[in-house]
């Protein structure tokens, strides 16, 4: 059996993270020789991995069904874009600064966007996490839409048209590096005595409290960490597409991420990563069939859900039964 999860801590998450960051750097260095189309697909994949893995901490591990992930993504996207558009020129000067200055600025923008999204997660999470199940789903859906509508009505941030001309700072390196960091944080959180509390909260809240766990704390931490990385993903998305509009962060986007989590197997990080990759690539692979693309995509989704309701890449159910 999987003794690394059991407690004999032989797995070295920091080495894995370091390796992943080096690999991201290497791919970043090689990017001029990679077909721009593939590069763009890879960036989309990476951003979706960040979104799905972070939502999995909330919906999968902690079992709090949130439908507002796109709202937190919007917070990160808008605030980081506003930072690079309105603050950066004062900082970097008219020439746009060197690559190092730009990188530092972009990192600041991303982290700032992520922190603001985390704050939004805290503000939304504290009242709504009192609710459970369907009610929580509805309330988070409502909050996600409220965030979007707020951006739609702030003229300073472009209103319904959104923000344009965002500098294209999102390189493949940043996307892959942040995807690695997201996976690292979620895996490290969950694979610890502390982190088993997320799963315990999911499995049986009453029992979790009866062994001294503050379940409210776990729910809010999951929500805030999830929102933080959604914000990072939003920042990467904005500086990748170079244009953001409120309509891009609507309910459909949240559902898209939820589907990745469910298909990957709730609370199964490798599965969710693979599902995010697969579901991002699928529409691309289906491009040749043109207008039937989304029909086929939906059809495949239905087939996958029927064939593997426990999650496409979730084999632990069977393994546990045999144990």
């Amino acid at each position, binding site marked *: 059996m999987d003794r690394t999860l059991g407690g004999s801590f032989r797995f070295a998450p920091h080495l894995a993270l370091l390796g992943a960051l080096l690999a991201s750097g290497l791919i970043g260095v090689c990017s001029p020789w990679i077909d721009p189309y593939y590069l763009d697909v890879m960036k989309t994949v990476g951003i979706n991995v960040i979104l799905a893995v972070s939502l999995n901490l909330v919906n999968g591990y902690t079992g709090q069904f949130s439908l507002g992930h796109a709202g937190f993504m919007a917070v990160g996207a808008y605030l980081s874009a506003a930072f690079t558009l309105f603050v950066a020129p004062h900082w970097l000067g008219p020439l746009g600064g060197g690559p190092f200055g730009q990188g530092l600025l972009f990192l600041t923008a991303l982290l700032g966007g992520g922190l603001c999204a985390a704050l939004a997660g805290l503000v939304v999470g504290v009242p709504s996490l009192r609710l459970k199940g369907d009610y929580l789903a509805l309330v988070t859906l409502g909050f996600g839409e409220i965030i979007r509508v707020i951006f739609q009505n702030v003229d300073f941030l472009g209103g319904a048209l959104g923000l344009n001309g965002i500098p294209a700072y999102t390189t493949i390196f940043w996307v892959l590096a942040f995807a690695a960091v997201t996976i690292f*944080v979620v895996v490290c959180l969950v694979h610890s005595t502390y982190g088993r509390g997320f*799963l315990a909260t999911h499995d049986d809240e009453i029992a979790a409290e009866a062994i*001294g766990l*503050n379940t409210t704390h776990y729910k809010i931490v999951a929500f805030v960490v999830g929102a933080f990385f959604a914000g990072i993903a939003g920042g990467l998305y904005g500086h990748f597409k170079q244009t953001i509009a409120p309509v891009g962060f609507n309910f459909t986007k949240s559902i898209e991420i939820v589907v990745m989590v469910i298909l990957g197997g709730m609370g199964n990080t490798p599965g969710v990563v693979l599902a995010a990759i697969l579901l991002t690539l699928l529409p691309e692979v289906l491009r040749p069939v043109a207008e039937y693309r989304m029909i086929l995509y939906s059809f495949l989704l239905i087939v996958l859900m029927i064939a593997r309701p426990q999650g496409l890449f979730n084999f632990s159910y069977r393994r546990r039964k045999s144990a």
Partner: protein
Amino acid sequence: MDPVLAPPAAIPLLSLDRVTIRFGGLTAVNSVDLTVGEGERVGLIGPNGAGKTTVFNLITGVYAPTNGIIRFRGQGLAGLRVDQIVARGIARTFQNIRLFAHLSVFDNVRVACNLHRGTNAAQTLVRLSAFRAEEAAIARRVDSLLEIFNLGRFRDAAACSLPYGEQRRLEIVRALATQPKLLLLDEPAAGMNAAEKIELVRLIQQIQRQFQLSILLVEHSMKVVMGVCQRIIVLDYGLKIAAGSPAAIQSDPKVIEAYLGEDHQKNVAHH
């Protein structure tokens, strides 16, 4: 707890002082007095619906009493959350087993060690030597607990895949991992056969000795109650109708009428 602040031995570990709870028009627990001393094994019995589990829910903070005071080590528990009361040293098991069904046996116990964890959430990410040492210590503690209770061979199995008796035992082990001073057992013998009940009595006595804690036991099986408890409290319709030694309780006519029923009275007459 600070030894200076520790209450003198005269104060009982747990005391309920005229505790009442009403749900609408129903008085589920009516002005009940109850004490459990250090190292004592107390039984709480009564017919179905007498309010036994409600008393557990009052002690553990699931419900707040309408009237009366619950004290633990001399301090009132009013206003504390369930998890804060566990932190004070009161652990419980449930009438219908509540394990973390999808976690492994190991993780079920491990997650209960969080209460005495010194490292914080951020250290989970940095994983310096202090964190790794503590995780290893917790793993050792969990493994030794599992070995004591003969659950080591199920270590990596999902809790829901365990046989019924082992699930009951695991729930007790999980409660012990919170390092309680008082263990509340809610019908631990439910669904057990005679041989398993004898084993359970032995187990509860062993736990009490080895972990030096007090036990408050709710149980229908007289064999288990008589085998475990030094003192018994009888509830009926939320009222305490009797309290005393097992022998005294067995011969108390009020108890026989309310709890053991008329059949038993006939049996007693026969003997």
